[in-house]
């Protein structure tokens, strides 16, 4: 089980890291310092480890790091900064969608993936979009509301709450 040098571009920064074959993308990212990617169930049930892998939201615990060699990864921390937060990050804070915060990075990634494809989601589409992400604090109501607020801010042309 020899390590192999792989290349990962995370939040715009390119890294070359030597990793063994049994290291998941989740552990690779956390070892590289991207600890906003959370380690939850490690079997694809909770979504806490979600990242965008080449633009697609995935559970990083179910990707072998070698499989991601050469890929672009976006983690929640790459969405924005404290000075210039992403509208989703701002809305999660403003609305109070964060309680313990453990699910938040994965929720932000799932929400980002949803809004990239569905700029004017219905409430049902939002619920479906975050169905792979467990939150044990909020009851989801504020999270759904935050995604609606962010959608409106990103794509103000139509009201996201209105069904088509």
């Amino acid at each position, binding site marked *: 089980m020899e390590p192999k040098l792989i290349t990962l571009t995370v939040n715009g920064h390119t890294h070359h890291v030597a990793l063994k074959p049994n290291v998941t993308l989740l552990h690779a990212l956390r070892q590289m310092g991207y600890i906003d990617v959370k380690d939850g169930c490690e079997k*694809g049930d909770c979504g806490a480890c979600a990242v965008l892998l080449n633009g697609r939201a995935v559970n990083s615990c*179910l990707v072998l790091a070698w499989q991601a060699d050469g890929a672009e990864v976006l983690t929640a921390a790459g969405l924005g900064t404290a000075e210039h937060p992403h509208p989703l990050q701002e809305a999660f804070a403003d609305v109070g969608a964060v309680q313990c915060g453990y699910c938040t990075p994965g929720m932000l990634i799932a929400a980002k993936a949803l809004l990239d494809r569905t700029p004017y989601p219905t409430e049902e589409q939002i*619920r*479906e979009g975050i169905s792979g992400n467990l939150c044990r604090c909020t009851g989801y109501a504020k999270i759904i509301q935050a995604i609606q607020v962010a959608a409106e801010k990103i794509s103000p042309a139509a009201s996201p709450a209105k069904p088509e």
Partner: protein
Amino acid sequence: MLPEFELLMPRTLPEALEMLAEHAPDVMPVAGGTNLIPDMRSGRYRLRWVVNVASLLELQAIRREDGWLVIGAGVTVAQVLDDPLVAQYAPVLREAAALLGNPLVRNRATVAGNLADASPAADMAPPLLALDAEVELASNQGTRRVLLRDFFLGVRRTVRQPHELVTGVRVPLPPPRSVTAFYKIGLREADAIAVASGAVRMDRDESGRCRLVRIALGSVAPTPIRACQAEAALEGRLPEPEPIAEAARLAAEATRPIDDIRGSATYRRHVTEVMVRRTLTECAARSTE
């Protein structure tokens, strides 16, 4: 942390098949990893070798080939949801894909992997059984095709040999006047494992009689199954309430369900009869529109 294994990264399909042949039986292919990685972590699989087939270009496409829709083994469930050929020729597969796992899982899980994993609850199985799909298996010795109904042997067991790779799923293009429907009973609306699922298909002739009927059931037997006696009860007849009810009764009789944390055997049998009756009734209504 995952147990130790060697990960092989072939660049071409022939290279992958050589690797599988060399290391069989202590080897498993991995694509999306949504089943294999948790199974390695839990200890269900202890493998010395794993062959990554996720990036093989030969397995990526969904294409129309003569009278078939061919879904490469690297195609994810999310790709199936977006694909116009699937929407046109296999809408029942699309319906089931929309209910498989959750968006994060669908972006990794492959259709072929869902079949090869051979869970009785595999969401891709009932629609593909209803469509008379075939599984294409390749090894360094050659290629063979197996009817999906002959592919499953038992819970998590298939006819795939350790040195073989599922390379694709082949679906015959449906004839005119073929109508399908899918149902899935879970413990919640999304991200649920099926308590019971099914796909029905009704092909009718010009007189409106059922020329061919398929009733495929998930989570109610050790493997996904066809309810052949139920199908025969409708074939050659008009899909009227009485023969539909009879077919639904026979479908429930074809089940061999178990009690588990998601539901009882009694419930599974009962809900199968109700849902088969409803979906057949829906197909009968749709095919006269």
